[in-house]
């Protein structure tokens, strides 16, 4: 199985927009959202901001040449701020889950940006909490700190990939 992770180019934005809708569809069931009257989730301007925000880098995930997901990395974590990166959004299509693809993508991102990281999950997203605890625990050999998110909506793990 060949896993490819590459930074998105402007011509990839239409595919990212569509993947984002599938991502939000998954989260709608977790965070209890309705879909908009236009059949779309979220505010298009907010979503478009991901591709133009200079702090954000979008990656497409391909598995054996087939589009399989995306990862958005933010330089300047939501809670820790400057000097820390976070995985802002992370999505692997259901067909490609439970095959180690997400874990490999996460490891490659951590390898690509040595330093401080913050990864957050919603309280209701138990599956993501289990996934990230395992991946971060293995990657850091247990050298990470888990604490409640300041917004009270979940948990986060913080770690430094240079200290493991």
């Amino acid at each position: 199985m060949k896993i490819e992770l590459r930074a998105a180019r402007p011509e990839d934005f239409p595919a990212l927009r569509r993947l984002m809708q599938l991502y939000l569809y998954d989260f709608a069931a977790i965070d209890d959202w309705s879909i908009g009257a236009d059949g779309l989730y979220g505010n298009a301007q907010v979503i478009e901001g991901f591709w133009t925000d200079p702090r954000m880098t979008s990656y497409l995930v391909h598995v054996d040449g087939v589009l399989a997901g995306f990862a958005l990395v933010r330089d300047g974590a939501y809670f820790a701020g400057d000097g820390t990166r976070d995985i802002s959004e992370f999505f692997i299509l259901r067909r490609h889950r439970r095959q180690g693809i997400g874990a490999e993508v996460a490891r490659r991102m951590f390898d690509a940006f040595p330093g401080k990281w913050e990864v957050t999950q919603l309280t209701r997203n138990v599956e993501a909490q289990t996934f990230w605890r395992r991946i971060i625990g293995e990657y850091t050999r247990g050298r990470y700190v888990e604490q409640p998110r300041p917004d009270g909506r979940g948990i986060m793990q913080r770690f430094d990939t240079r200290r493991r």
Partner: protein
Amino acid sequence: MSYETLIVDLAVASDDHREGVAAFFEKRPPKFSGS
């Protein structure tokens, strides 16, 4: 329910949906206006 009430309710529901997603992205509690 009147047509006008239905339209207002739909608008509030739509606003709340957008707010729910915006809050998710911005990692903060949502500020719902209704429904």
